[in-house]
């Protein structure tokens, strides 16, 4: 293989990307060496099994991926506002909409939410770490290397260009030769290992490690949403794993599962993809519901209205999410019976979702609302999400879908649910729990600027797309008709507004790091749930003593009874897991194997797989049972954290 086949050549934008990758990497290496921080990085972060630190690494990676996916989006919007400028050619445009979709769903939305779950769920249920801290580290590194593998594709080998859905036969070996689609397959497969393991980990943690006395229906609603989400992950992700494996075998080893020739069934890919893909959209929306519920209850200063209805509607949504997948390809041409069945099941989902909307409204009703930044994101979510939901029901009508399918109407719909739902929730959750993670709040004034830029930009960007879609503009085109121009220009203006909002948000992180008042107590917002009972910064063992829980809003009653999580009489040595470098090494080797498989270097891939197996063997004979934190040390840490 020649070097110019290995690297992508001939695109000034991509040369720019290469230069910036080299510059940023050397800057990081220089800074770490100059500040002598390599040991610190290895000991404190790369080898950690602490759920809070892993969560922070998830969120940082997700913000980086949001930047990457956002730049993709802005490039597409520039192309569509000035289609005659030849900013992007058709091939480059195809690659960019593919990576935009994949990065945003798999490498931004999920890790962001998983990061918040990592940090908050153990704190909310009174656990000292995940059930399997080692596996949690493995999960993170598999996601991280999966994301890196996918992202490197645009400078090495060429990006995938068959859409984030990667439909066959287009994505098969015959029509998409070369490493591009392999990057998609291996990147998702690698990250999928982590997601699946996290699902199992969170489920066991929530089922087995709740504080004494906390019943299932006493759990905070975010924990409930996480439990339901892990359930969906455990049952949906194996479908993706199998589908990806089959397509990989098709492309690399010449089997015929999804090909047009040799008795393959190309539409079977769409079928399997959406059997995972539809539950996947609930994987990214249910935790968002949980986050909004927590924030709305906290800043409306009321108990969440209809807690049980909220929980049951989430369970119902989770169940229904496995029964609606065909609505993504109504236009495949299935008969009236097939489409009607899935049309009805799709519309059924609107019922439990509607229940949740009314419960949030009822929680807000006659309450004294505190207009914090986190609350404003949550309040903006409700009407924006309803617009997305109602247009979703329109798309759910199979007959009408023949008109809407693959038009900008669809694009507008799913951006309305995914941005107003998931992205708003990520921002809101990060703002809300930021003091718990970093010991200071994000600046409220700058936060509100970022909120307004992003919210207005969002509506300006996507509302016109409903109309340009009804006007017939299809998705995934890089050239447009003149009559679609005005609305597309408006859309592009809105997209840049969102970009400004994101930049202000990131600036706010820096500004608050420099200037925000440090938190002295752990309870930044006068919270209701157990995570606010811990001091700030949260000690690595989370809870010195576990409170006895009886009822919802556990911390509220603890505050009434003057209880804390530091009861000196009840202190006992705490058993904690040791840090380990095995997860990152194991996953780096597996990433090497995946990279080799992308280029179909079978020998190297086998070597990498053997290396991974050896690492698993080493892990199997690892008898490190962790260590105990002694009572004296706990006392010292707690007293300094609580200012006693």
């Amino acid at each position: 293989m020649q070097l110019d086949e290995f690297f992508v050549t001939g695109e000034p934008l991509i040369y720019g990307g290469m230069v910036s990758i080299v510059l940023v990497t050397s800057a990081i290496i220089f800074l770490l060496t100059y500040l002598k921080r390599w040991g610190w990085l290895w000991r404190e972060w790369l080898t950690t099994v602490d759920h809070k630190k892993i969560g922070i690494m998830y969120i940082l990676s997700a913000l980086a991926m949001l930047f990457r996916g956002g730049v993709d989006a802005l490039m597409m919007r520039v192309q569509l506002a000035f289609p005659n400028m030849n900013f992007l050619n058709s091939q480059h445009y195809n690659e960019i909409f593919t990576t935009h979709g994949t990065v945003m769903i798999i490498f931004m939305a999920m890790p962001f939410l998983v990061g918040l779950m990592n940090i908050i769920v153990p704190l909310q249920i009174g656990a000292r770490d995940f059930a399997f801290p080692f596996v949690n580290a493995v999960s993170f590194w598999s996601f991280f290397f999966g994301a890196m593998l996918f992202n490197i594709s645009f400078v090495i080998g060429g990006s995938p260009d068959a859409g984030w859905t990667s439909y066959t036969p287009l994505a098969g070996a015959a029509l998409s030769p070369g490493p591009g689609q392999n990057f998609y397959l291996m990147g998702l497969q690698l990250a999928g290992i982590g997601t699946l393991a996290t699902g199992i980990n969170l489920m066991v943690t929530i089922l087995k490690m709740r504080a004494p006395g906390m019943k299932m229906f006493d759990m905070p609603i975010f924990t409930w949403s996480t439990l339901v989400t892990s359930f969906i992950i455990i049952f949906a992700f194996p479908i993706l794993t199998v589908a990806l494996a089959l397509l990989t075998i098709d492309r690399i080893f010449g089997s015929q599962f999804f090909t047009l020739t040799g008795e393959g069934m190309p539409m079977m890919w769409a079928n399997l993809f959406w059997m995972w893909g539809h539950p996947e959209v609930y994987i990214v929306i249910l935790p968002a519901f949980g986050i909004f519920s927590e924030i709305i209850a906290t800043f409306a200063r009321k108990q969440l209205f209809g807690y049980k209805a909220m929980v049951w509607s989430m369970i119902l949504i989770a169940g229904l999410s496995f029964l609606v997948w065909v609505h993504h390809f109504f236009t495949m041409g299935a008969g009236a019976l097939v489409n009607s069945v899935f049309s009805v099941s799709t519309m059924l989902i609107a019922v439990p979702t509607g229940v949740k909307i009314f419960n949030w409204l009822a929680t807000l009703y006659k309450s004294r609302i505190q207009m914090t930044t986190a609350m404003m994101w949550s309040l903006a979510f409700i009407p924006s999400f309803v617009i997305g939901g109602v247009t979703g029901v329109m798309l759910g009508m199979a007959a009408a879908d023949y008109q809407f399918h693959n038009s900008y109407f669809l694009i507008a719909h799913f951006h309305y649910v995914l941005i107003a739902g998931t992205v708003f929730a990520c921002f809101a959750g990060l703002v809300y729990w930021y003091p718990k993670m970093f010991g200071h709040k994000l600046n409220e004034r700058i936060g509100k600027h970022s909120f307004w830029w992003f919210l207005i930009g969002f509506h300006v960007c996507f509302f016109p797309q409903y109309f340009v879609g009804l006007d017939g503009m299809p998705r995934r085109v890089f050239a447009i008709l003149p009559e679609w121009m005005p609305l597309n220009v408006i859309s592009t203006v809105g997209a840049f507004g969102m970009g400004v909002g994101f930049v202000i948000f990131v600036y706010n992180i820096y500004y608050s790091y420099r200037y925000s008042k440090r938190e002295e107590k752990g309870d930044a917002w006068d919270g209701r749930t157990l995570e606010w009972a811990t001091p700030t910064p949260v000690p690595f063992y989370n809870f010195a003593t576990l409170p006895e829980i009886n009822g919802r809003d556990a911390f509220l009653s603890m505050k009434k009874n003057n209880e804390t999580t530091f009861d000196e009489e009840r202190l006992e040595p705490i058993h904690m897991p040791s840090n380990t470098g095995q997860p990152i090494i194991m996953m780096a080797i597996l990433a090497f194997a995946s990279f080799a498989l992308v280029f179909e270097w079978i020998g190297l891939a086998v070597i990498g797989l053997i290396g991974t197996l050896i690492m698993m063997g080493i892990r199997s004979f690892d008898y490190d049972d962790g260590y105990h934190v002694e009572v004296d040390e706990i006392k010292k840490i707690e007293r300094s954290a609580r200012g006693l």
Partner: protein
Amino acid sequence: MSKNTKHVPVQHIIGFLLSIVLTLLAVWAALGSNLPVAWIIIAIMALAIIQAGIQLFMFMHMTESSSGGGHVPWNMMFHGFVLAAIIVAGSLFTMSFGFHHDHGSHTDHQEESSHQHD
């Protein structure tokens, strides 16, 4: 399962070896044997069921009291079976396009592909 096997997990080793043997048998049945296709499929299915049993009883704590005497794993397996049913039945339903394919002029899609194996 019992306390005294904590350091030498005899059951796990037996289960591991049995799994390998069963897998090799399945590979031989598919590649090395001269059995008719129908028998190969039946044999692989039977081996798979035995292997699943080994996994459940030798590795997965099916009979431990801490998992509610198997209540927890059965609960999850029930959901697994339901989902498997949805995947198989749903795929057949969807990919048939809701039409019958036996109009005489052309044979059924799946029959054709299984004939090719012979």
